[in-house]
């Protein structure tokens, strides 16, 4: 069974001593000033604009932050005040976050694709200040202001399209910086004062937990928490000084803040910011990072793209790739199983490095990546093995917003597929009697903003209740099964975690999303969203004509394909938990429809409500259903679409 906990398993991880405690003035700002003093001319940030990389040295970085802080203060920015940051990754938005932190304010980054009506929730603190990337975000903030009266000041980075705006309080970034520079010139002591103002117990950033179970909750992380987490990770050789890093993850996600701002300043990374979200993969090759962090989903996408590219390649190239990849995956599998390395492995791998692995890594831009990480959700076996076989040191780690993203990580000697690694130095892990993972560390946060009830439920006797169900292996490696709240029972009383099964199904490149049903039902069933790119290519190769996603999903050939995937997964599931029936959905789950979160986690209650008709049909034994789909257009209008969906038995 998936959840049973043998008695022999330990409930506490071995605790390694934390690295040296932080000093009194230990903040991101003081570290930034230290970098500007010791490595003034070294490149700190690189930002791609119209094809050219613009570089900021550590001195430029500090200059911008201090000038902006001085300018913000002149506008009336006060301590403890939130500063909304909305947009894709841009150097100036990072400067603004640090400038707000310097004024002892709270930078609050928001996902750029949050629709205007949800924005009010993130801005509930009635922030007076906001910085926006471009016209699109400015429009949203203006809409928010029309409704709530805040934010009063909207600072924008990219002035394109904003020339005709007459709204009050709309200020160009340059103007604020110019005002700040004038103040700095008039008052020579101001710069030093601004750098020293914030203390370790001031907030460094306000983020929101992803909120699979409800509305996102505000998580305020203090400087000392963030720095403690980074030092814990650095002590475990999780990253080193001077890494090349690419900042492309959403700024509102803890991973980006810890890597692109926290660790980047503490350990002097060179952070490169791609031109835009669409060019990330292309720009990655120009950056050639030494440290790369992507979600399991991104690694899957990368693998899918690679496979599509190789399938289209010429026979010789395709044959060579197939031969060497099979070889490398086989070697990697044996190595992970603990087999002793054989001399001929190295010979063949060396040849493969020249012919296949090296060129592929170069195409991905990961030719220099010494440390590759994934976190957030379980990674597929195929994906994990493929990239490790390529020679990338891909490892998993585990963390949550409440603990600055860094709780446990795999080390080189103990890379395994089902574990997320061992506790970082300075982090204590305990498993309670319900199987929930508890954490105690310097890096754990101090409570949710304006939500004492949730804080009381989460922080108990100094331990952080993660809400994750898991167990510790005898050697201290942590295994995460899923959310404690996700454990459900079928009507026959079988316990299971849908997410665990879903992840296994999603390991197939053909499945983009899947929802496993079965809580309170007689058996398990699945709603499958196919992957357009992979299945589309698959159909093209086999001459299956299709017009749209909806059309493709309903092809009998595609049903047979998905059936095969589900049968494969059924093979590793205990008989009562095998999937019996499934339906291919006419569309992919979309965060704009509320079916998944921005980080692509399923919102089960939304799915169960919206597709109740389909679910009932599945359990009623129907072989087909006429479904009325409500769709929301990008303009916010909604319409109704009628779709005939096939329901199929998985079979043996």
């Amino acid at each position, binding site marked *: 069974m998936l959840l049973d906990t043998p008695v022999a398993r330990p409930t506490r991880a071995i605790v390694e001593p934390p690295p040296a405690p932080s000093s009194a003035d230990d903040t991101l700002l003081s570290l930034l000033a230290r970098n500007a003093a010791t490595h003034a001319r070294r490149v700190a940030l690189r930002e791609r604009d119209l094809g050219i990389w613009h570089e900021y040295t550590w001195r430029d970085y500090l200059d911008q932050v201090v000038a902006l802080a001085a300018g913000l203060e002149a506008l009336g920015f006060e301590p403890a005040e939130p500063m909304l940051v909305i947009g894709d990754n841009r150097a100036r938005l990072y400067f603004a976050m640090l400038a707000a932190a310097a004024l002892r304010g709270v930078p609050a980054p928001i996902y750029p694709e949050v629709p205007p009506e949800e924005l009010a929730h993130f801005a509930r603190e009635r922030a007076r200040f906001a910085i926006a990337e471009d016209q699109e975000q400015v429009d949203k903030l203006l809409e928010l202001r029309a409704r709530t009266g805040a934010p009063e000041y909207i600072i924008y980075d990219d002035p394109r399209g904003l020339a005709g705006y007459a709204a009050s309080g709309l200020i160009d970034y340059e103007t604020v910086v110019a005002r700040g520079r004038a103040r700095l010139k008039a008052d020579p002591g101001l710069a030093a004062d601004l750098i020293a103002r914030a203390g370790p117990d001031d907030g460094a950033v306000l983020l929101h937990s992803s909120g699979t179970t409800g509305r996102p909750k505000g998580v305020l992380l203090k400087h000392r928490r963030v720095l403690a987490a980074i030092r814990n990770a650095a002590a475990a050789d999780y990253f080193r000084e001077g890494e090349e890093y690419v900042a492309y993850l959403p700024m509102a996600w803890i991973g980006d803040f810890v890597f692109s701002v926290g660790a980047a300043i503490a350990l002097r990374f060179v952070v490169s910011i791609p031109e835009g979200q669409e060019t990330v993969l*292309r720009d990655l*090759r120009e950056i050639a990072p030494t440290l790369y962090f992507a979600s399991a989903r991104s690694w899957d996408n990368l693998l899918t793209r690679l496979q599509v590219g*190789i399938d*289209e390649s010429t026979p010789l*190239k395709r044959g060579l790739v197939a031969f060497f990849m099979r070889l490398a995956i086989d070697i990697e599998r044996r190595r992970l199983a603990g087999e002793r390395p054989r001399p001929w492995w190295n010979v063949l791998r060396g040849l493969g490095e020249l012919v296949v692995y090296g060129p*592929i890594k*170069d*195409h991905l*831009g990961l030719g*220099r990546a010494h440390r590759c990480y994934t976190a957030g959700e379980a990674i597929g076996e195929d994906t994990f093995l493929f990239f490790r076989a390529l020679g990338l040191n891909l490892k998993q780690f585990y963390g949550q917003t409440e603990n600055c993203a860094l709780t446990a990580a795999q080390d080189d000697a103990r890379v395994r597929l089902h574990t997320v690694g061992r506790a970082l130095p300075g982090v204590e892990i305990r498993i309670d009697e319900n199987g929930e993972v508890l954490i105690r560390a310097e890096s754990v946060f101090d409570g949710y903003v304006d939500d004492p009830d949730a804080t009381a439920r989460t922080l108990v006797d100094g331990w952080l209740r993660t809400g994750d169900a898991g167990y510790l292996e005898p050697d201290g490696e942590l295994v995460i099964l899923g959310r404690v709240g996700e454990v459900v029972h079928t009507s026959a009383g079988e316990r299971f975690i849908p997410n665990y099964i879903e992840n296994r199904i999603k390991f197939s490149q053909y499945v983009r999303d899947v929802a496993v049903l079965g809580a309170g039902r007689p058996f398990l069933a699945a709603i499958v969203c196919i992957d357009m790119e992979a299945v589309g290519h698959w159909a093209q190769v086999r001459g299956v004509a299709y017009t749209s996603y909806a059309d493709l999903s309903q092809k009998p050939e595609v049903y047979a394909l998905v059936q095969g995937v589900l049968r494969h997964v059924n093979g590793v599931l205990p008989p009562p938990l095998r999937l019996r029936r499934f339906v291919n959905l006419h569309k992919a789950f979309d965060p704009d429809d509320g079916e998944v979160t921005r980080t692509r986690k399923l919102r089960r209650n939304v799915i169960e409500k919206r597709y109740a008709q389909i679910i009932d049909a599945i359990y009623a034994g129907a072989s087909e259903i006429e479904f009325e789909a409500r769709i929301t257009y990008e303009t916010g209008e909604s319409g109704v679409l009628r779709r005939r969906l096939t329901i199929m038995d998985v079979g043996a």
Partner: protein
Amino acid sequence: MFYRLAGVRHTSYAADRALWPVPVDRWQIRALLALAVGAPFLLPDLYLTSYLLPWLVWSTAALGLNLLMGWAGQIHLGYAAVMAIGAYGAIHAVRLGIPFELALLGSGLLSAAIGLVFGFAALRVKGLYLAISTLAMQYLVDWIISHVPAISGGSQATLQAPAFRFLGVPVAGDWSRYYVALAVCVLVTSFLLNVGRTSFGRALAAVREKDFAAAVIGVNAFYFKLMAFWCSSFLGGVSGAVLAFCYYRAVTPEQFNLDVSIQAVAMVIVGGMGSVIGSYLGAALVLLAPIVLNNLVGAFARAAALPLHQEVLSHIPLILYGVLIVGFLLFEPLGLAKVYANIRNYFLVWPFRHARH
């Protein structure tokens, strides 16, 4: 397979326009330059003087003609005449005691001036008509050189290239002549490589694609056509002088007759219009293929003991050579440069079929 592009990025637009942004290309260029400089030490003198040296000089000449044909799109069937003007001009200049370096420039300027006069024809006529008018130049120059004793020393005469010094060093042996040719070749190559990145090169391309369309977007077709003739003739004159001083060391009018013009055009077309590497490859094929084919056919005839008449034996290589040229035009009209580009792309996108993203 060998190309690594990760980490190639630019912090300015100037860097973005670099000639060889790909590290492997830079290494190739360095290796080629090292080989070229080290060739006298590596090759027997026979190969140096009878293969490598003429190849370099003819590549230089082909580059000059390519500027006109490939970049500016104007045909020229009198290129040998342009080279002849340079050759005779330089020899007479050095005989008059002018230093070789100045004579080289002077020969270029002389060719450019005379070439420019015929270039004016290009302003009025295009295509076949231009071909005929440049052909007229070929015949006129040939006739004048052989019939004016002051230039050629008489119709049957051979004019010896006098001894000369280059940058203060006496150029006497095979090695020093090779290095002079190499230096000129490298200079001309770097000029041509950079032409494509300048406004001049872009204007030429506009004129090539359609002269009146170029005029519509504000490119002075009149000026740039003349500039193209001027530059190309200058380079032709210089390469003619180098050919005379470093390779032939004595000139007769027959060395620059119509056949030679046709060969130069063949080098450009077979090599690849508008391509620097194509000029090298084209010159190599046109110069070396007859020799290689001759040796191959001879060896084959001897090995198979074919009872072929000497007459037949000497014509087979010519037939094969023709087949080779026609084959290239049929199967790769864009020339050897395109063949090279295809091979390069094959490895550039390895192991994929085409560029990703």
